[in-house]
């Protein structure tokens, strides 16, 4: 084993040696430098390996051959090995990334760089306080040098600000160290810890100075303007270094030094971290400069790490895992993003759209962003989960809220940025250069993210139960992304079919709910994938996203504990976000979708955390009535699901997200994805059947929310001009019914909800497929621009007709089942007023149903559609499969509803519905689906024959052969009455749909933005002011900690 001291000797030796090679070929010198980093990394890796796999004892290095505390000693333990490894690798990769820069600046720059990495290595290894100070100074001076590797007024002034701030900090640090020596009589950290040297009163102030200085080196908000300027002004490679290495090393030092401090320092660290986390993430929202944004994010992440450190005692043995998970995510993702910034060379985050020219880089960016935001399967997800669980167990809910709030703010700006990159206008942007040395670190970063994700998933309790197999398949699909879409489509459909074959039969006779939902998710997946055959080319990025969503969905069904559930939920969120954002104009909508999803998921996470508190198990059984706060848990988790259900208040993402997505994505997200919320509610409510907060009965409130969602959703749908938005708003309405049904907490209520869910899956899939097929032909979303298409697209027309008959609940199709059950349920439950309003909503549904079918298929055929063809057969096939399903379900509902009823009986014992063949009898009424079907069909045939007889000589006439007040129509456009069809309705009850919810969300966002905008004015760009901030920060911290000046 190589002595770790050789990290020093190699770095310094090489640095000094480079002095001889000032005029030599820089390729040679830079290679030597990189070899030095590689050697360092090798040394740390070797120790790391030893610590992990052979339980080696920590290794002390006594310099000068004397025992500490009399000489300086270094320690190479497991953690030190990890951290030095990270730093040396970052040095190596960063060195590779900035190869060109080094070649340009020559050996002096390389020397500074070596000095930086050396300094960071030593501050991790050293056990001597003053030695720490010395090498801290080495690294900060070196940093000051690295900043000006690009020489312009921005970087120079940023560097000066940096050096001003760091010198001020170093003055205080030195003062503190000296007094620690004075009071403690030693400079050795171990000595101070073991002999409790720092107990005297004055030492506290000294410790305060030292720890505050170190905290300030971690750039806490708001005393961090200098750091942000540095992130913005320096080269991206330097940003990566600062963010990934300096912060990492100082974080480690803080951890090291906290050991000798008074225990209350942990609280200080946690508070500082939380302020930093929330504050800088808040300010990040207004940020437009990519590097500065990353700076804010870095500060935020470090804040989170500080919080974790502050709670290290609470977290106990989980601390290392959590901290490491967050740290490694931050480390990889942030350096990766900075490197990407160096590749794309665009300051404004809007111009990152240039990445679209090389989509693989979008993928890289996505990996990094999702890693940062804590999505599965990346390590930060596991860490964040565990953190929330542990904090909840400790009852620190305020902190949980803070962490989740900060994370949410972070997601806001990260994904806005991602949206710009994914969908921004990129034609005017220059293509970026791709030298190998810049690609290599990024690729290594991405691979490491995946590698570490793979390793880290097994380290948590319950982690092994997570199903990663679909992810491997998704990775495979991404690898063959270049293949033609048809081939991939076939593979995917076959695999999903096979998977369905594996999964669905298991639930037969055992778990009817999971049978239904797995069928919806998997068979729905197959059906909605069929139109994919239409796509030419390779359809890059579609299949991994779709598969992510579907694997998340089926993961929900297969999950047996909250951990798996949440994991799947987040996977589904990523997948659906990536799917939705594929639409042409869907960037803002996908953004909203993601925000609501993330927000909802955080509520859910908090709920899970509260439920998990005090329980060893992770299974769903911990959600049960009677545990403390079960009502609040219910509410939190319900909010999470409501965001997916797009219940009123959480609905504003839906119309755009569904309306603007691709033709075959819309049915995926709207008819399949939305059911995830229903499934969640079923899981939740089977475990916590009732919840009261104060005088408020939450299911009762949910019921009202459902009513209002249904009402507003349907009215809004009626007033849409865009066909897909119409159907999307209709989803809000139908999900309102479902929520209402679930909230009724009765046998029939649930049966209604599940029936609606099935129906919604069927008819919404049908409608979106049909409309999507039509829109692909007409190339317009506006219904008034279509019209008369029945003559050209009869098959689509029939599909839409069946769809709206089902939607509107007209007998004999299965939609009526829902209505009938609803009446029974509300009367039996006693929710009369709500019930009547929800029925009212159901009637309003008729308005948009008519509009949809009339404006598109009936009325006047437009000139430009005269030669239009029927929608593609790939759209028609799944539609007709769905139609057959609807017909079967309508005629024989008993085969589905009866088992559901039996299943429900275990939760709601009075089996309110008795089945006798196809006759369903409730205590109120009865309903015989098959008979109705037969009677209606018979009657229809008879009447049709009668009319045929009456009108046997009828003459089919032309489009304009209408009575037009003795005139003739001139153009189809002016004759097709479809625009603003329900103007009078809007006039009558438009006040009901005043978008005060949208407005209030807008106001909230405006408000947050304003706060962020005003707060960030403190970063006025003046280095002196930054220094003042640092001092004020210290002074205020002192006043708070000390409880006054003296």
């Amino acid at each position, binding site marked *: 084993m190589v002595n770790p001291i050789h990290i020093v000797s190699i770095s310094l030796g090489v640095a000094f040696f480079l002095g001889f090679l000032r005029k030599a070929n820089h390729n040679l010198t830079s290679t030597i430098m990189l070899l030095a980093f590689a050697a360092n990394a090798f040394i740390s890796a070797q120790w790391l390996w030893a610590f992990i796999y052979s339980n080696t004892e920590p290794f002390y290095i006594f310099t000068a051959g004397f025992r500490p505390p009399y000489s300086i000693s270094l320690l190479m333990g497991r953690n030190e090995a990890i951290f030095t490894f990270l730093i040396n690798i970052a040095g190596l990769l960063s060195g590779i990334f900035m190869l060109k820069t080094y070649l340009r600046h020559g050996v002096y720059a390389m020397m500074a760089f070596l000095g930086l990495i050396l300094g960071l290595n030593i501050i991790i290894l050293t056990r001597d306080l003053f030695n720490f100070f010395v090498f801290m100074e080495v690294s900060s001076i070196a940093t000051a040098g690295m900043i000006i590797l690009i020489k312009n007024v921005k970087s120079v002034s940023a560097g000066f600000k940096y050096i001003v701030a760091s010198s001020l900090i170093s003055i205080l640090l030195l003062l503190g160290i000296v007094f620690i020596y004075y009071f403690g009589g030693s400079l050795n950290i171990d000595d101070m810890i073991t002999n409790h040297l720092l107990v005297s009163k004055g030492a506290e102030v000294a410790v305060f100075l030292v720890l505050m200085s170190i905290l300030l080196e971690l750039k806490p908000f708001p005393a961090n303007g200098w750091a942000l300027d540095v992130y913005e002004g320096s080269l991206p490679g330097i940003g990566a270094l600062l963010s990934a290495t300096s912060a990492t090393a100082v974080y480690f030092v803080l951890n090291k030094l906290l050991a000798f401090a008074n225990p209350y320092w942990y609280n200080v660290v946690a508070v500082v971290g939380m302020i930093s986390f929330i504050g800088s993430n808040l300010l990040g929202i207004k940020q437009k400069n990519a590097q500065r944004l990353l700076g804010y994010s870095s500060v935020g992440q470090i804040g989170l790490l500080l919080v974790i450190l502050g709670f290290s005692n609470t977290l106990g043995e989980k601390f290392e895992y959590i901290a490491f998970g967050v740290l490694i995510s931050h480390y990889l993702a942030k350096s990766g993003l900075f490197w990407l910034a160096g590749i794309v060379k665009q300051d404004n985050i809007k111009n990152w759209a240039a990445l679209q020219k090389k989509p693989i880089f979008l993928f890289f960016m996505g990996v990094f962003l999702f890693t940062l935001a804590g999505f599965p399967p990346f390590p930060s997800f596991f860490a964040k989960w565990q953190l929330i669980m542990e904090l909840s167990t400790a009852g620190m809910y305020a902190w949980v809220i803070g962490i989740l709030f900060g994370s949410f703010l972070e997601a806001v700006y990260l994904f806005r940025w991602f949206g710009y990159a994914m969908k921004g206008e990129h034609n005017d942007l220059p293509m970026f250069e791709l030298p190998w040395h810049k690609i290599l670190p990024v690729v290594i970063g991405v691979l490491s993210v995946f590698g570490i994700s793979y390793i880290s998933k097994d380290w948590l309790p319950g982690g092994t139960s997570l199903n990663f197999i679909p992810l491997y398949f998704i990775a495979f699909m991404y690898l063959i992304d270049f293949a033609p879409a048809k081939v991939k489509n076939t593979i995917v459909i076959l695999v999903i079919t096979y998977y369905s074959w594996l999964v669905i039969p298991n639930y037969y006779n055992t778990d009817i709910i999971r049978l239904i939902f797995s069928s919806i998710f998997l068979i729905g997946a197959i059906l909605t994938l069929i139109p994919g055959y239409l796509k030419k080319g390779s359809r890059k990025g579609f299949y991994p996203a779709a598969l992510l969503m579907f694997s998340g969905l089926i993961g929900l069904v297969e999950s047996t504990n909250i951990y798996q559930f949440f994991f799947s939920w987040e996977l589904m969120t990523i997948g659906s976000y990536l799917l939705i954002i594929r639409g042409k104009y869907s960037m803002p909508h996908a953004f909203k979708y993601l925000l609501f999803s993330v927000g909802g998921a955080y509520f859910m996470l908090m709920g899970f955390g509260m439920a998990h508190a005090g329980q060893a198990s992770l299974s769903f059984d911990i959600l049960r009535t009677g545990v403390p706060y079960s009502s609040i848990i219910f509410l939190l988790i319900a909010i999470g699901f409501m965001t997916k259900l797009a219940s009123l208040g959480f609905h504003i993402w839906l119309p755009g997200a569904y309306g603007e997505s691709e033709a075959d994505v819309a049915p995926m997200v709207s008819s399949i994805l939305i059911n995830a919320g229903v499934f969640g509610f079923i899981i939740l409510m089977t475990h916590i059947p009732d919840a009261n907060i104060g005088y408020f009965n939450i299911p009762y409130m949910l019921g009202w929310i459902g009513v209002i969602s249904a009402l507003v959703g349907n009215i809004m749908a009626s007033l849409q001009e865009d066909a897909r938005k119409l159907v999307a708003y209709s989803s809000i309405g139908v999900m309102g019914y479902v929520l209402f049904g679930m909230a009724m907490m009765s046998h029939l209520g649930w049966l209604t909800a599940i029936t609606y869910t099935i129906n919604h899956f069927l008819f919404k899939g049908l409608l979106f497929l049909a409309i999507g097929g039509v829109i692909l032909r007409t190339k317009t979303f506006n219904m008034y621009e279509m019209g008369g298409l029945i003559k050209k697209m009869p098959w689509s027309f029939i599909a839409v007709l069946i769809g709206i008959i089902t939607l509107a609940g007209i007998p004999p199709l299965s939609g009526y089942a829902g209505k009938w059950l609803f009446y029974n349920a509300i*009367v039996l439950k006693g929710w009369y007023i709500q019930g009547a309003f929800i029925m009212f909503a159901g009637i309003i549904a008729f308005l948009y149903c008519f509009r949809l079918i009339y404006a598109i298929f009936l009325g006047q055929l437009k000139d430009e559609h005269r030669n239009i063809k029927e929608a593609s057969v790939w759209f028609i096939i799944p539609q007709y499969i769905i139609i057959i399903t609807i017909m079967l379900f309508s005629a024989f509902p008993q085969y589905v509803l009866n088992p559901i009823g039996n299943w429900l009986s275990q939760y709601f014992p009075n089996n309110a519905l008795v089945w006798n063949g196809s006759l369903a009898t409730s*205590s*109120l009424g009865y309903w015989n689906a098959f008979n109705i079907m037969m009677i209606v069909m018979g009657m229809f045939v008879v*009447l049709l024959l009668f009319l045929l007889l009456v009108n046997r000589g009828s003459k089919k006439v032309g489009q304009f052969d209408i*009575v037009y007040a003795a005139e003739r129509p001139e153009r189809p456009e002016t004759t097709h009455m479809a625009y603003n069809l329900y103007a009078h*309705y809007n006039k009558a009850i438009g006040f009901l749909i005043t978008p005060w919810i949208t407005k209030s969300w807008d106001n909230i966002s405006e408000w947050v933005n304003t706060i962020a905008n005003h707060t960030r004015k403190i970063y006025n760009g003046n280095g002196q002011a930054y220094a003042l901030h640092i001092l004020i920060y210290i002074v205020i911290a002192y006043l708070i900690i000390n409880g006054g000046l003296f």
Partner: protein
Amino acid sequence: MGVFTKIPYVLLGLFILINYGLLVTGIFRRISARIGKRIGMPVYQPWINLVKLYAKRSSVYHGIMFYLGPVFRLGGGVGIFLFMPLIFGSEYFSNFSFAGDLILIMYFMFFGMLGMALGAGEGGHPYSAIGISRGLAQFTAIELPLTFAIIAIAIQYQTLSLTEIVAAQQGGITHWVLFTNPFATAAGMLSFLGAMGASPFNVVRAPQEIPIGPPVEFNSGFLAVLRTNAALLHIVEAILWMNLFFGGATNWIELFIKSFCVYFFALFVGTVFPRFRVDQSIRWYLKVPLILGILAILYIKFI
């Protein structure tokens, strides 16, 4: 009684009701003429009109949905009829009400509306679309008080079966919903006004503004079918309201009289009041009848 043995009775009932509907239509034309100080058309005029329309030698249609629209429309009327128990206690004239209850009838109304809407829509005439959009919009509001009334009745009798609702109202006039829950009856009757499409809620088919609205393109046999349906539907609706609020009928005479009275109510209001615009009528329904509906539920729940 088997389904197939029922068919002759069903057809008989259908025949009776269509003719009764035409008769009632004729009578009302006559009555409203008298209100206007006219003599009015002969009572048998509806029959003549029907014969004439069926006897038109030529007809035109615009497409398959235009052709099917009247079928749907008539199907809606006939369907409601089929699922409606006509005579309480009579096995012969309970039609196919074994297949579904009140809710089925409620939702079967949409069947006809949808057919009409589709047929008229395919006609391609802008006025049809205007008429339909008015009709549908107004209908949403009309249904709301009715929904309240029905829920109130369902609460009251704990059933949604029309037969049982009628059964519960037997035994004297005071057992009618009219007296047991006057609010429900009031709400229901107000929505009946709209359901009948009579003035003041007949802006849907404003004959001059949007020539007759939805059926503007229907002619000859198609129109004849629609007129047949109108005769049937209105009387069936009257019977439905009668069953709901006025104790149903135990024999044909009672049915004729009661449904006539219900029908007369709509006519009476219609002759007296001028027409509402759509937005006015919707708002109106969301005020008084809605309050009545809520009162109906509160009344039955707490009193």
